[in-house]
Each structure stands twice: as C-alpha cells, then as structure tokens.
C-alpha cells in the first residue's frame, strides 16, 4: 500500500507547529460582542427576582437575557450530540428559572468587551429561593428531592427514564442463570468500585462565535466535534428552524468527547439571533472545570464467579451512574460499562448487567473518551486481577485461559460475532515487552522503594451499530486535484489526514493531490460527527467507497473522450487508458468543465451493522515509595489491535495520549464536592493532569487483525486506549503494597496510610 499504513505527517502539521491563526478565537471577528454567563452559586434554587437595570446602564452593554426572556413551558432540549431521537432526555431550557447545580446559567450577558461584561455581572442582583440540594447519588433514586420535577421534561427513547424518580435511565440485560453459576463457582469475587467525574481537560476550552450571514441566517463557528448535531441542538434551544442555522468548525484544540456536547454554543447563538450582531463566548478554565461535560461518576458492583482453574464462569454487574443535573449521555454511557467489559471473557456461561442512571444537583456529565467502558473495565479487570491473586495465578495466564477469540459470539455485546481479534497476540506482546516474568509481581529496589507491575485488558467499539452515519464527497478540480469534503471533525486526531490517506490509496494519487474540507453543515455531506470511535471506521469506509465511485466517473468521462466503451478503460491515478490510447486526469478534469455533462464528483454515505471492537492489553510498571506513598508509572507497555493502523504514527500518539489520561485518572485526577455542591478541583492548579515529570515512558506496539468491514482492514483506536491503565496501575500498586484500592484516584496518602488504616 502506498499511502495507507504509512506514517504521513498531518496535513495541518506545519501550520500548527508554527502557530498559525487557525482556531476559533484567532479567526473570530474583532467586533464580536463578548458573551458571558452569570451562574448560580446554589446547587438547587429558584430564581425569584433578577434585576438587570443597573448592569444595562453601563456604557457598552448590549443585552442581558434571563429566564423571563425564555418561555418556561416550551419544549426542552438536550445538549448531547447524539443521533435523533436522542437517548438523552430533553431536560434543559436555554435559561431555566430553576437552577440545578452550582454553575447553572442564570443570565446571558453580552457587551462590547470583557471588562464591561465582567462589571455588569457584578451589578446584576439576583434573589434566590434556595432549595435543599440532592448531592449524594447513592440516595438519588426515589428521593423526595426531585432534580427535574417539571412536567415538560421529556424522554424521547425507551431508556427507562422517569423524572419523578430522579431516573435518567434504567436497563437490565442478561443471559444464562447467573445465580446458578455463582452457586457452582469455586471462587466469587464481590466488590464495589468507584470512579470519579474526571475532566477531559482539552487545552482549548469550550468556545464559539456567531455572526449573521448574507441570507439572514445564523452562522455558528464552534470548537465542536459534532456540527450537524449542534445545528439541531441550537434549533431546539432557540426554537428556530434548522434551515436558519449553519455550523462549522475551525481547528479544534482538543476534544476527547467534551465537545460532543454543545456546552457553550447556544448562548452566543441566542445573542446573535436576538441582536443580529457578532458574538463570541470563551469559557474560562474554571467554567470548563465546573460547568461542562465530564465523565460520569460511576459505582460498579461486580460479582465474578470462577473455577479454581481460573475459568471465569459468570459476571454480574450493577452500575450506578451519576449524570448530575442534566442527562447528557447518561442513558448511553452506562451501557458501555457492562457491554464493553463483560464480553472480554469468552468462557462465561452467564452474565447479568443492571444499571441505574440518576440525577443529582451537581454539574452534568457528558462524553469522555472511553464513554463508560473506562469505568466498567476498571471494575471488571480489577476483579479479574483479584481473582488471579486469589488463585495464585499469573494474571496473563488467567487471561489466556479466558479471552474471546476471533469468530466467537459475544452475548454481552448484543450477540455480535467477534469478526477481527488479535487479543491473544496483544497479551503475548505486552508480556514480553515489559519483561513480565522478571518483574512480576514486585521487586525491592533496596532504597525504600519497590517496583511492581500490573496489567489490564480493554475493548471498545467502532462506531454505534446501525446508527452512526459517515459520508464523503470527492470531486475532481482543474489540474486533476481532488477535494474531499467530510462532516467528521478533526480535533487533533488527524482524521483529515487519515481520510485523505484512504482516498489517496484508492485514487492512486499523492497526499498533496487531495485537499480536505472539514465539517460545515452547509457544505459537508452528513456525518454524525467525530465520536464513538467512528471516524476511521465509519467515515473512512465512506471515503473508500466514494473514491471507488469517483474512479468510475473519471473512467466514464475518460472513455467518452477516448471514444471507447467504459468497460475497456483503466484508471491508474494519472491516465485513463484503453490499449495504447490514453488521456490524462488533467485533461479529463479540464474537459469536465467545458462541454461535458458527466459529474466528476461522488458522494457516498456509509453505516455499519456491526461495531467491531478494537482490543488492547496494557501493563504498568510502577515505582512506589513505601513510606511516602508516592507512585510513579516508570514504564507503560501496551499492545493495540485497531485493525490496520491507517497512519501508524497518528495511531501511536493516540495510544500514548490516551494511556497518560488513564494514568492521570488512576493516580491524580480527582473531583470532590463540598457539602453545598461546589467543585474543589476548579482549575489546572487544583485538578492535576499529569505533567511530563509524572511519567517515565509509554511504549506502544500494534498487533493488527484485519477487519473486513473497515477501510483497508481498519477498526477504531481513539477511545480504547484510555481504558487499560486504571486496572493495570491499581493492580501494580496492590503488588507493591499488598492492599487493594477500589476507588480512584489512588493518591500517595492512600498508599502510604494503607497499612495504618487496617
């Protein structure tokens, strides 16, 4: 292959490393109104009165909107970027009189500059009726405090939601007789695991600018992963027709799922719609940490039954998920905690997976890389590691006995067949690369420090089965260069480049021959957006098919120009030829623009009836200071089966980045609330993502299966990579100190004081 499976530089790389102005705030009109949000200091309150007159008297103030401007009985909306009808409930108003978490929007404030708006915010007087908040998600279900008591709350899908019970979703699924399996098991592991509402912490915070276009339509330019969903969300929030809205994205400074929720777009959209003036909003880091779309906090009760030979016979999982004040991605994330952890164990005879997703008065959760699988895999993989320890069995050996293989049916994965799988090879590779037999379980370094190892496995999906849609439009321009239009969003993942690589492979051209135009609702073919590990697999396949179709069009016109039958011609990327006669692509392109009516353009839409899982194995070597409890991952080794890596470099950096996010979640990234519902970790000073001094090395290998449904055998990689560090690091710490931790992050204090608490 010439371009696929090649480590080609990203098409935008040199622009980015030389600091060119390509992000939202670099290109926003200079005369934008500055939009800020006055936020609730209370976790649960009703706005009784709000006085904006004094604030509006400030020179340069443009508008202040409050709940009084927004019909409170109108249809609600969700900010979740999902295919319609969204599983996430319609539980929001643009501005709600009832504020439901500390940071909920009380007023939209717009003025000529930041200083004016800041001053105006101080002058707005709000009187609240403060209500008792519901902060503990353990007691949320059927609590007397209702987070959404309103009657215009609406659930569009049968996800088991009931606002009168604080339920955002409820689901049950099972196969076989789980209780019988436990009764017959030699060993049952039974624990509750807890993960926090970690933040994606992309370096570019949420931001959007809006203008009115030449046709009187609202033009929204946003740092978003989901331009098409965003258009619907804005239409729903503002109650205006979708035809009046255009959404496009510039370069995005990271997303990781955060920008799969339209956290900020509706506010400047409303200001521009009302004032007809350009407006922009840029979330502060504090807003991005306190009023955004973090991971769902989950508590998972795992029961796992096995034989004394180490065969996992059954897994029972109950997940309680905390969606916070609003239900974005609540019903869907929770499913992955079971459906993307339990299927790894191919010998199990039964499973049961029950879940509740509850509302509380804290910040709404959203989509974060891994999307529930991360939480579930921490629980299930930790339980399996504990099983291995209990049986005095090497965790690799135990995995080898249990894993699913290619061709197996996965009952807990909606009965899908495992169409491509190199999990066995991943196990072997990681085992050898980290020198497991030499390092497992622990080595005393003789200086108060020990080095230990731990491992974990993971899977994810590749797009949402029979839901996600990816499309591509390819056209030939003069001189014979191509334009590839996509609705998927490159957020640093490199999909513009990867998709061009796929097109170049089919069209037999160079990367320079293809320009990529990304994500504009007016001009891109429809795409659900870049999330759910869908872009390479779903949109990539659309590109492959589209390029094949365009090739046919080129041949058709080439044949016409050569005066022969289309069945006799061939296109080699440069010329269409038949026998000794040939015509160049350049001449065909020129001809297409003069006196011919064959379109050198094709659009193909793709969806997939399966979601082939990528697989991964990871192992951590940690150094633990037994006295201080300081723990550092000095080496992390992982092997990924993402099918064919379209661009091995970009796949590798995805893996490395995801792994460090997982390590952060395991060791330092915490979210805590005080008794009134304020987040303590509200800045990069308090929420500690790893710095480069916090990690030794990360080494990634690829063990590629070949997925026939994917483009050139590819599956996804973006999400699976975050999952293994949680159980691997936790088990390494167990091997170091002999105590298991069931809650993340595992801080130095927990490690150092573990023997003292016993």
């Amino acid at each position: 292959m010439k371009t696929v499976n090649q480590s080609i530089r990203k098409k935008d790389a040199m622009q980015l490393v030389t600091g060119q102005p390509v992000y939202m705030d670099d290109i926003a009109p200079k005369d934008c109104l500055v939009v800020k949000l006055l936020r609730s200091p209370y976790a649960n309150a009703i706005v009784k009165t709000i006085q904006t007159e004094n604030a509006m008297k400030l020179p340069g103030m443009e508008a202040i909107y409050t709940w009084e401007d927004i019909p409170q009985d109108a249809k609600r909306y969700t900010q979740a970027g999902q295919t319609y009808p969204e599983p996430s409930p319609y539980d929001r108003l643009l501005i709600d009189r009832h504020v439901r978490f500390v940071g909920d929007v009380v007023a939209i404030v717009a003025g000529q500059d930041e200083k004016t708006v800041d001053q105006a915010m101080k002058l707005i007087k709000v009187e609240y009726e403060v209500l008792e908040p519901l902060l503990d998600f353990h007691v949320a279900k059927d609590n007397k405090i209702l987070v959404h008591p309103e009657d215009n709350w609406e659930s569009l899908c049968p996800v088991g939601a009931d606002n009168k019970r604080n339920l955002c979703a409820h689901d049950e699924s099972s196969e076989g007789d789980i209780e019988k399996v436990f009764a017959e098991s030699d060993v049952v592991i039974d624990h509750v695991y807890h993960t926090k509402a970690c933040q994606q912490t992309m370096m570019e915070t949420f931001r959007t600018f809006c203008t009115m276009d030449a046709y009187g339509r609202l033009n929204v330019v946003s740092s978003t992963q989901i331009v098409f969903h965003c258009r619907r969300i804005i239409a729903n929030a503002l109650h205006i027709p979708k035809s009046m809205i255009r959404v496009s994205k510039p370069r995005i400074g990271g997303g990781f799922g955060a920008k799969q929720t339209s956290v900020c777009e509706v506010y400047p959209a409303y200001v521009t719609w009302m004032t007809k003036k350009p407006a922009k909003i840029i979330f502060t880091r504090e807003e991005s940490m306190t009023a955004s779309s973090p991971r769902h906090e989950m508590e998972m009760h795992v029961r796992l039954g096995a034989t004394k030979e180490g065969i996992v016979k059954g897994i029972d999982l109950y997940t309680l998920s905390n969606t916070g004040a609003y239900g974005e991605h609540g019903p869907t994330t929770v499913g992955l905690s079971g459906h993307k952890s339990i299927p790894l164990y191919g010998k199990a005879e039964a499973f049961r997976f029950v879940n509740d997703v509850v509302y509380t008065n804290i910040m709404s959760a959203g989509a974060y890389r891994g999307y529930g699988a991360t939480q579930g895999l921490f629980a299930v993989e930790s339980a399996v590691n504990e099983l291995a320890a209990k049986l005095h069995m090497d965790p690799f050996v135990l995995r080898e006995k249990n894993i699913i293989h290619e061709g197996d049916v996965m009952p807990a994965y909606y009965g899908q067949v495992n169409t491509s799988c190199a999990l066995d090879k991943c196990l072997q590779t990681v085992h050898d690369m980290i020198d497991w037999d030499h390092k497992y379980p622990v080595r005393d370094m003789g200086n108060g420090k020990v080095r230990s190892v731990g491992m974990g496995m993971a899977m994810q999906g590749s797009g949402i089965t029979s839901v996600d849609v990816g499309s591509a439009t390819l056209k030939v321009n003069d001189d014979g260069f191509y334009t590839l239009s996509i609705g998927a969003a490159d957020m640093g993942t490199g999909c513009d480049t990867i998709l061009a690589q796929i097109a170049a492979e089919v069209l037999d051209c160079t990367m320079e021959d293809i320009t990529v135009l990304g994500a504009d609702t007016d001009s891109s073919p429809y795409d659900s957006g870049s999330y759910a590990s869908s872009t390479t697999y779903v949109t990539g396949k659309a590109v492959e098919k589209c390029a094949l179709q365009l090739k046919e069009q080129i041949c058709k016109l080439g044949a016409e120009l050569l005066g022969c039958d289309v069945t006799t011609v061939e296109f080699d990327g440069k010329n269409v030829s038949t026998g000794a006669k040939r015509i160049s692509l350049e001449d065909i392109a020129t001809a297409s623009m003069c006196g011919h009516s064959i379109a050198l353009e094709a659009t193909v839409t793709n969806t997939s009836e399966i979601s082939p899982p990528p697989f991964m194995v990871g192992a951590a070597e940690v150094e633990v200071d037994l006295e201080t409890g300081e723990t550092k991952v000095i080496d992390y080794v992982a092997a990924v089966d993402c099918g064919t890596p379209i661009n091995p470099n970009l796949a590798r950096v995805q893996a490395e980045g995801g792994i460090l996010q997982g390590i952060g979640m395991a060791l330092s990234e915490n979210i805590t609330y005080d008794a009134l519902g304020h987040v303590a970790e509200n800045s990069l000073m308090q929420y500690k993502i790893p710095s480069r001094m916090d990690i030794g090395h990360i080494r990634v290998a690829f063990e590629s299966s070949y997925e026939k449904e994917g483009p050139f055998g590819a599956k996804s990689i973006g999400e699976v990579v975050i999952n293994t560090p949680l159980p691997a690091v936790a088990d390494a710490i167990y091997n170091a100190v002999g105590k298991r931790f069931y809650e993340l992050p595992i801080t130095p204090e927990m490690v150092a004081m573990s023997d003292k608490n016993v």
Partner: protein
Amino acid sequence: MVTIREYKKSESLEEAWELNQKKSNRILGGMLWLRQGNNVIQTAIDLSGLGLDTIEETDKEFRIGCMVSLRELEQHAGLTKYTGGAMREALRHIVGVQFRNLATVGGSIFGRFGFSDVLTMFLTMDSYVELYKGGIVSLEEFAKSKPDNDILVRLIVKKEQVHFAYQSVRNTQTDFPVLTCGAAKLADGSYRFAIGARPGRAVLFHGIPENLVTGTNLRGSAEYRKHLADVLVKRTTKLLDEANMTGEER
C-alpha cells in the same frame, strides 16, 4: 482577574513605601498570585526599577534583592554550592521554568504562603529579611508575623558551617507540596528543620521537630502530613549524616 487602576514604577523605596501605606495599593511581586481573584488595586507599585534584582555573595553572607526571580535563585552557582543543591531541589518543582522566571523571592517570602517551598528553604538557612522601615528581622520571626504595609527589600542569608538537605512530597511533580522539609546540620552536630505545607506556613525547629501542628486540605490529611514529617525528617537527617561523614555537598 485583578483590576489595576494605576501603575507606578517607583523611583525610590521611600516613594513606594508611602504609596503602600494606602490599603487599596499593592506592591507587585511576580504577579502570579496577585492576578488571581477579583481584587481591585488602586495603585500597583512596581519595584523593578530599583536595582533589587541582584544576588550578592560575600564571605559572610548572601544579599538577595526582593525582585530576584526563583529561577535566578535556582541557577545561582554560589547558592547551589552553599546549599549543596538543596536550593535547586526546593525550587525545581514549582510549576515550570516560565513561572519561576517571573515569581520573585520577595513576593514568595512576603506572602508567607503555607505551601511555600521558598519559605521552607530560607527558614532552613540562617536568614533575615531587610524591611524598609522595620530593619533587619530574622526570617523565623518574620514568618510568624502578619503581613503589614512595610516593604521587604532583600533577604540576607548568613553563611555558616553547615550542610543542607531538602525534600518534599507532592501528589504530582509540579503540584503544590503535601509537605516540605528543609534540614540543616551545623558544625556542632546539631540540626535545624523547617517544615512547610503543613498546610500552614512553614515553621522552624531547632532540633528534631516536636509537636508539629498539621492540618487537612485537598492534598492530604493532618495525619498523613504528620507521618510524612517523620519520614522526611528521618530521610534528610540520614542524608546530612552521610554528607558529614563523606564531606560531600548535598
């Protein structure tokens, strides 16, 4: 973000002092802490034109101007040699090089921040502050006092026959410390320890720390901090004893 109505680059300490007597006026250090929060400052007083950004070393002492950056302290050959690398160890975890190029020693010490590695390290040494009106005061005393409207002009570190060691524990490498410990072993064999990030201000102990008061915040509990103090005192003592035996700089 802080609001500053007027900016005054002072031409003399007297002028700066007079301006600083007004409650709404503030002296600028590195601006790293001052910029945070929504304070309104009438006049921001800048001392950066007064030549207070030098480190002078003599046989007897170091004289360190209040506007010297943490990065300059960290890279100063004389201080590195005198502290056996402890000064560098105390500073290298603080956020990053760009931060330490801005943060001033005067701002760090005057702020008497609980989390301060800088205060811990200077307390470990025989340090004094020179206040514009208050004269020369031992750092130990200054560290206990409440911030007032005087100006910290420079720090003076008197040289001793001594070995230093510095250790801290952090949840992540560039985070605030959970506990800091500076240790000194004097020529007569006695020890001196400064323990900071308790999370309260660093305190100095002449001899092995006793009755250390610790508290709880986001980064650790009082109990864990007590435990860490024991560990770090033990470890720094061991380092110092080894240094004494080998005559090595630590």
